[in-house]
């Protein structure tokens, strides 16, 4: 898999403030594998994801390339249909909108929806299918609900997971991590994941990582090595890390 997902000279401005400056990075990893993005709060990781998805308020210059196709200018749903999917860190609650109703409308066929029975069970999701989306759910349930909503998308090539391990307990961490790996294999897709703690890395096959610092990539290398380095030295040292110097 070559050049499945990369950004070129990407700058992102939010409310007049430039958060990402002239970022060029190839995030491509093989099918079923993860690229891990580390970085302190406010360094631009979520901004990168949201800009790539085309959310409003994110002014973008430079290129966002999915399998060679430019995403810039496309509406969010068109990017999704092109193969780019996004898992929220903190999704909004939709009162009066039931998960199952939306899922069926998305799929358009009750019989096909039944084919997701295994996914529903893997994510222990039956209890919130008939509830309003993200209303009154625990942290773990929100993450599992998000994952199920990604599972029903078609033709996804790249998944962007925004802190799937935040705010969940150890049982959910394992469930979420293992499901994410299965999802990539099933969809024949790759994933990019943002994580603070790195706890989820033991459940996923992460083969490449980078540290984002002040809107730029400060370090690229093996995820576990980067994580150990961050734990030992802190993010600020990444700016001068050996990998970058090379």
């Amino acid at each position, binding site marked *: 898999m070559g050049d499945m997902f990369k950004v070129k000279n990407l700058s992102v401005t939010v409310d007049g403030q430039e958060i990402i400056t002239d970022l060029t990075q190839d995030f491509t990893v093989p099918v079923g594998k993860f690229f891990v993005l580390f970085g302190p709060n406010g360094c631009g990781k979520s901004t990168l994801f949201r800009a790539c998805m085309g*959310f*409003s308020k994110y002014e973008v210059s430079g290129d966002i390339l999915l399998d060679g196709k430019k995403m810039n200018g496309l509406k969010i749903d068109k990017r*999704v249909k092109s193969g780019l999917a996004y898992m*929220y860190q903190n999704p909004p609650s*939709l009162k009066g*909108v039931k998960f199952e109703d939306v899922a069926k*409308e*998305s799929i358009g066929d009750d019989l096909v929806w039944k084919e997701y029975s295994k996914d529903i069970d893997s994510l222990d999701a039956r209890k919130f299918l008939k509830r*309003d989306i993200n209303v009154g759910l625990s942290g773990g349930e929100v993450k599992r609900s998000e994952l199920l909503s990604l599972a029903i998308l078609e033709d996804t090539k790249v998944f962007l997971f925004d802190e799937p391990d935040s705010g969940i307990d150890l049982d959910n961490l394992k469930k979420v991590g293992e499901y994410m790996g299965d999802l990539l294999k099933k969809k024949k897709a790759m994933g990019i994941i943002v994580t603070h703690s790195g706890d989820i890395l033991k459940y996923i096959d992460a083969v490449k990582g980078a540290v984002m610092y002040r809107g730029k990539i400060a370090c690229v290398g093996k995820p576990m090595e980067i994580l150990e380095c961050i734990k030992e030295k802190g993010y600020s040292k990444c700016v001068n890390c050996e990998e970058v110097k090379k």
Partner: protein
Amino acid sequence: MMNLEDFLNNYMNIGLNPYIVLNDNEPLLLESDTDSLEVLSISNPLVGKYIKEKKLVLQKNDWKKYTGYFIKCAKNSFGNAQTCFLTSEEGLEQRVQNIIVVEEGGHLELFTGCLSGKHVKGNIHRSVTDIFVGENATLIFNMIHSWGSTSKVYPNVKVHVAKGGKYISNYIVWEKVKEIISNPTVEVDDGGQTILNSLSYIHPKSNMDLGGNIKLLGKDSVGEIHSSAVNGGGDFVTNTILEGVGDNSKGHIDCNALLLNDGAKVTAIPQLFSKNSNTQLTHEAFLGKVSSEEIEYLQTKGFSHDDAEEIVVKGFVNKSIVGMPEKVQERMLDILEKAKLGF
């Protein structure tokens, strides 16, 4: 008279008996009397006799010709019925006087529809309705409009809720109408309760003034007004008034309105009057467009902007009909499905 085909195409029979139909200004044809429910034409002399005997005070009208019904649910009885106002002549002004009485301990559920034939233009519906909910009695009054796009509708409703009684109104307008002005007044005695729910879709060039006035006269009386509106480009006003008079009376007003485009206009005027320091009255309101955060969230699930907006509006409707009778919810969802939300 409206032809049968128009009628069946427009109005959903929810299968209740009796089915009371008031056509134009013609007298009610089918009267009925069972142990629990009495239905009479307003012109029946027995109605006047009952009013006099019970010393009921009615609103006045100076009409020479009008139609109307008298419905009485007997003491400690349970009853339900569906009613329908029809107008079948172009430009006709239908005039209706209704009286509804639920005697002590009774429980009545009414499902009411209003409609005009497809060919009928410029019709007007005026009504004067007096409702008496007796001690510890309950009336659930459900109204789903299906007037035509040129219809003008002016109901004048006055309700008296006696000690421990309960009056719940579910008022739904989703299909096209030119103008509706509906501001019922409800007086609530000791321990009585009233809830006025309204859910409306305001089409372009449509004027809607849906509110209500609740007078919490009795000790421990409770009143709520919930106005929900989706405005697709018309003019929506909601004048809501709560008057706290009785000791320990409590009331709440809320208004939620979604504005789907720049042509949509919403005015919410909640008024709270307290004449007793021992009352508790509150209000809250949200007027605004559909949340872009919710739209974008649904777009990440593959929905187009328009489809996402439709889902959010449908969610708004689902929230608004929670607690309404199942038949009303089913009918509302059916209307939504057929109308594709009307936009």
